[in-house]
């Protein structure tokens, strides 16, 4: 029986952004592709990850996050 591997279940050629992409570009990409995290690449190599939480933490003031969280 064939044992499934990561390559069998992964989404190939994922949506990525370069490290120089702006927050606005990233938000547009996330909305356009309906994804909540996006890999950051440099020359095709994984460099980091940006999640929705990362965006929220960086773009919205602390006092809003405090209310947002409770």
């Amino acid at each position, binding site marked *: 029986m064939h044992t499934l591997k990561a390559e069998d279940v992964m*989404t190939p050629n*994922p949506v990525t952004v370069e490290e120089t992409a702006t*927050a606005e570009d990233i938000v547009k990409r996330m909305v356009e592709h*309906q994804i909540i995290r996006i890999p950051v690449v440099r020359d095709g190599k994984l460099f980091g990850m940006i999640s929705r939480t990362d*965006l929220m933490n960086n773009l919205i*003031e602390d006092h809003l996050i405090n*209310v947002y969280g409770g």
Partner: protein
Amino acid sequence: MIGRISDCAPEELLRPSDKLFLPVLDLIGMNIQSVVIVLPSSAPFADGNIPQKISLIIRDFLSNGWSPLLFTALFNDPLGGFMATPNLDLKARDLMHTRLVTVTREYSARDLSILIHTGTFSGMSVIEPGNLLIGMVN
């Protein structure tokens, strides 16, 4: 799709939060995942309640089970600096986190599913030697 409430009259913003919440509900019906509120620069901030009202709206969103991709209040003129304009020019390298857990293409899909279903991870990058990104598993 990004919804935009840019034509709110200043007086609308000074009413109870449900007044502004209603047009936002319309946007939800349109399957919009992100809302940007652009406050007119002429908005009267004198009572200082605008950020609180926006916070109330966000709380309403959450209590209705709607998770906005991004809810940003943009101030054309942040009078008094009550809330800074989000810096949409920040670069990916400034926003990203680098504590990554990745797997190779040979990694067991069963083990991956355990990691994801137990809540340990919500998604995983699949790489080849040399950090070359070849896929994502969600």
